[in-house]
């Protein structure tokens, strides 16, 4: 991870500091360590009201009537609103407009918002909720996603004709999207039996991935303030201000310019803030009461207030030649989207197109289903669609290696994709993809020392179970496993998820200063730092101010799909280039260079205009004087295509990223406890923009994958979440998290700004299968469910119910 070092131009003592490749401190770091950083939950206005949400107690029920009179009579209550009070469109949605602002007709998941209250105190608001009477006729829940996908007799979650149909997604019945992919002989209509005959060795497997929660630390919250023009200002923690605005305004019956959003401090996101939570509710109450309204969910409500990672069931079959060459693969995946579509169509698009992973396979058949059920809605979470598939295909690769008697890394190298390969959609990987090299590097990383060589090998703190003191070394077996994940980066399938940046260069107090304004959501990843680095590099000015993100500037797209360094980074770079051209034009205008002097010989550095031939020409302060140069630019990635609905062909992805993990675990085979001893990663990021922040992304993503491998699952039974708290839904603490070594490669992607690749998601894919593989290696158990449960390791049936 060498930092970019450029030679100082002639006549300058140093280059501009803290540009790309360096590790400057994050601009919000000081406020975050002093406690002054204003998160959405910290917003406060003296006359504000507190909002609260009445949620459905049933996963599936008809609403017969709602009586709010008791709540309205409670002193301190200012408003109680139901679906009848929604001023505009009654439904919203990221991709399909299928989700009621407040339930009408029926409720489709436990926790669905039915009514909202504004009161002078949060406790008054909560008491008011208890006084709202809703009559329900309970309906049978639709809990089985496989049945929803495949059984035509399964009851419908959304009544026939109630939704606009999306034919491009084969939407029908409970299917939100069905995406088949057929290549090779399968595309010509061959049956599995026919293709199977081509292989020497066949392995099949069924795998499950549980419902994971993003578990950001700062629960949903926001403050809506009514404005004098009849509009509303919303201060909100979200991932994409403009997609919120696009969904909120029609429901309020307002034009977009009357719904103005400002990003409040975001306490983590990981996909959970891509959908709306209380945004429309807060605005409705603010407009209704004429007072500011604040909502803050607590942790339990947060589990009902955002979408989760789609649980998946997968059936795989792989066939190979005796030497390990893959011949064919089939995959069926059912993704439980829950009550509303959210990002399910995109999740199906990713899970299908990347369904067999980064391997060359001539004959492939994939059937991917995303379905409606009356389970909690599922949508975006880091690595969506690809995380589930990766657990399946990597488990299959290990199973195949065992069947062939081959080393699992050698089997992967033998079938690895590389630049020029085509994935199963026919799309060429037209950027470096050094998978074989990455696998070799992962294998060659030093292993942690054997237990026997530790200073205190029987110290329970170093063992599975930790201070619970469950073992002093007896029954402990070590295992090693590998995982590789292929991830699409930026939005896919025809989305033009452009980003916009406004950059201003002016002289402030005798010094050149740059202001960068975008609507991009800083959710912790460090985009604020990267935007500043790009501006410094492009404009040679160290003093850069990043303005708060709001809707006064054009859309930046979502802080998801690992896309912001690429897209908003690209927008900032392009806007800076436009500013720079105007600086150079000014230089020519002032006669500082001859007319024909090419721009290529000019640069900005250290606050000066520099000519490659003549050194420093003039300082920016002198050149600009009182003039400010401001440019706004949109950045678009190259166009992508929808997968065709019958064979799933098309160049649907913008960019590919990859991470390889090697996990080392110690397993207490008697108690089913696991300690991850090492979790090392090799990732190609194209270009390291900020080494320190990159490490934070890779390690954070790896830890979330560790959670999915061993700890994290929302327990849903008959549509009811059984563990909506941090006492029952466990995420890794430091004692669960091993040291994580990182090996970063920089093979530039010629299509991307600076050659960079989105880096936040790929490690979330590969760490889960690597850890589970390591536990299999230690125990010999099949372990087909992520997360692995103690009973799976010990080999007893899980408790029923």
């Amino acid at each position, binding site marked *: 991870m060498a930092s970019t070092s450029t030679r100082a131009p002639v006549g300058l003592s140093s280059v501009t500091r803290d540009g790309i490749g360096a*590790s400057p*401190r*994050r601009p*919000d*770091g*000081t406020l*975050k*360590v*002093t*406690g*002054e*950083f*204003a*998160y959405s*939950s*910290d917003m*406060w206005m003296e006359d504000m009201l507190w909002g609260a949400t009445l949620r459905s107690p049933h996963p599936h029920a008809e609403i017969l009537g709602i009586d709010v009179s008791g709540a309205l009579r409670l002193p*301190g209550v200012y408003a109680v609103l139901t679906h009848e009070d929604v001023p505009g469109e009654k439904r919203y949605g990221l991709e399909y407009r299928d989700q009621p602002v407040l339930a009408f007709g029926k409720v489709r998941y436990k926790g669905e918002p039915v009514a909202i209250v504004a009161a002078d*105190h949060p*406790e*008054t608001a909560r008491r008011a909720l208890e006084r709202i009477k809703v009559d329900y006729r309970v309906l049978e829940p639709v809990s089985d996603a496989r049945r929803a996908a495949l059984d035509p007799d399964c009851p419908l979650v959304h009544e026939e004709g109630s939704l606009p149909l999306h034919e491009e997604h084969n939407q029908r019945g409970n299917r939100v999207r069905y995406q088949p992919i057929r290549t090779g002989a399968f595309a010509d209509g061959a049956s599995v039996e026919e293709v199977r005959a081509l292989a020497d060795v066949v392995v099949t497997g069924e795998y499950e991935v549980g419902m994971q929660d*993003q*578990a*950001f*630390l*700062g*629960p949903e919250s926001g403050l809506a303030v009514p404005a004098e023009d009849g509009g509303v200002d919303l201060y909100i923690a979200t991932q994409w201000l403009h997609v919120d605005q696009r969904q909120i305004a029609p429901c309020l019956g307002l034009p977009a310019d009357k719904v103005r959003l400002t990003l409040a*401090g975001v*306490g*983590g*996101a*990981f996909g959970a803030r891509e959908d709306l939570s209380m945004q429309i509710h807060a605005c409705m109450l603010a407009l209704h009461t004429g007072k500011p309204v604040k909502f803050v969910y*607590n*942790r339990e409500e947060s589990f009902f207030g955002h979408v989760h990672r789609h649980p998946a069931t997968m059936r795989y079959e792989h066939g190979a030649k005796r030497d390990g060459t893959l011949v064919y693969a089939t995959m069926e995946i059912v993704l439980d989207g829950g009550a509303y579509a959210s990002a399910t169509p995109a999740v199906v698009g990713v899970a299908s197109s990347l369904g067999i992973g980064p391997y060359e396979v001539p004959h492939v058949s994939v059937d991917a289903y995303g379905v409606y059920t009356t389970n909690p809605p599922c949508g975006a979470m880091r690595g969506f669609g690809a995380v589930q598939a990766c657990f399946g295909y990597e488990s299959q690769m290990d199973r195949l290696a065992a069947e062939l008697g081959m080393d699992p890394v050698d089997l992967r190298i033998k079938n690895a994709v590389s630049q020029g390969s085509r994935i199963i959609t026919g799309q060429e990987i037209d950027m470096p993809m050094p998978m074989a090299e990455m696998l070799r590097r992962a294998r060659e990383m030093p292993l942690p020392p054997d237990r026997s060589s530790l200073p205190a090998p029987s110290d329970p*703190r170093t063992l599975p179970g930790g201070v619970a003191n469950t073992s002093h070394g007896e029954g402990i077996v070590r295992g090693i496993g590998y995982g590789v994940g292929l991830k699409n980066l930026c939005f896919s399938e025809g989305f033009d998820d452009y980003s916009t940046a406004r950059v201003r260069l002016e002289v402030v107090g005798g010094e050149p200063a740059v202001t960068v304004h975008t609507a991009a959501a800083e*959710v*912790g*990843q*460090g985009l604020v730092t990267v935007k500043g680095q790009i501006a410094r590099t492009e404009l040679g000015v160290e003093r850069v101010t990043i303005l708060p993100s709001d809707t006064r500037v054009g859309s930046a797209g979502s802080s998801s799909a690992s896309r912001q360094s690429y897209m908003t980074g690209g927008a900032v770079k392009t806007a800076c280039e436009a500013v720079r051209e105007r600086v150079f034009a000014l230089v020519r205008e002032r006669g500082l260079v001859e007319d024909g002097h090419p721009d290529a010989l000019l640069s900005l550095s250290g606050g000066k205009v520099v000519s490659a031939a003549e050194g420093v020409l003039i300082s920016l302060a002198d050149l600009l004087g009182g003039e400010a140069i401001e440019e706004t630019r949109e950045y678009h990635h190259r166009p992508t295509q929808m997968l065709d609905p019958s064979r799933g062909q098309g160049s649907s992805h913008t960019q590919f990223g990859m991470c390889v993990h090697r996990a080392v675990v110690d397993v207490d085979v008697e108690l089913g406890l696991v300690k991850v001893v090492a979790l090392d990663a090799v990732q190609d990021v194209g270009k390291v923009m900020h080494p*320190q*922040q990159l*490490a*934070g992304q*890779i*390690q*954070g*993503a*790896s*830890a*979330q994958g560790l959670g999915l491998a061993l700890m994290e699952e929302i327990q849903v039974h008959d549509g009811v979440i059984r563990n909506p*708290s*941090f*006492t029952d839904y466990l*995420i890794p*603490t*430091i*004692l669960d*998290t091993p*040291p*994580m070594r990182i090996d970063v490669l920089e093979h530039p992607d010629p299509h991307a700004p600076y050659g960079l690749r989105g880096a936040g998601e790929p490690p979330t894919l590969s760490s889960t299968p690597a850890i589970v593989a390591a536990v299999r290696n230690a125990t010999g158990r099949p372990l087909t469910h992520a997360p692995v449960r103690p009973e799976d390791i010990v080999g007893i049936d899980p408790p029923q119910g």
Partner: protein
Amino acid sequence: MNEETHEIRLRVNGVPRAATVPARRLLSDCLRHDLGLTGTHVGCEHGVCGACTVLLDGRPVRSCLMFAVGADGHEVTTVEGLAAADGTPHPVQRAFRECHGLQCGFCTPGFLTVVAAFLEENPEPTEEQAREAIGGNLCRCTGYVNIVRAVLRAAELRRAAGRDPQAGDPAPRGPVRRQRP
């Protein structure tokens, strides 16, 4: 709501403060809502995540698990009170910033208060001790690697600043009892 309330007096970040609260008002809500100190964050309301940790007479407590009336007559230090009176950041604040020990930052105040108290007890921790010290705090962003680094770096900065009481520094024991003007 006609509910019996109690007058409480406490020192918060060195400043005498008073509040009128019902007996069941949580210390976290009292700090955030009654006293306007929103640096103390509430992540789980169950005492699990540690984001709401403050120092009570120098010892870390989960302010979401404690009633405000229980803090009557005591000294509370929140993240806002970690810096010195002249604004000089506490070594843990410097170290977390320097080592990129935070991303979204929501969990950070809890880590900072815990680590500040820990370094008072153990000014020269090993890496293993540093890991154990923060075993009760959840972070969802970082994977903890940079946080461990920050704890060790904070110890280093602290020693360099000569604040280590064992090195003869006259600073009072107990993490942060600096007076605020």
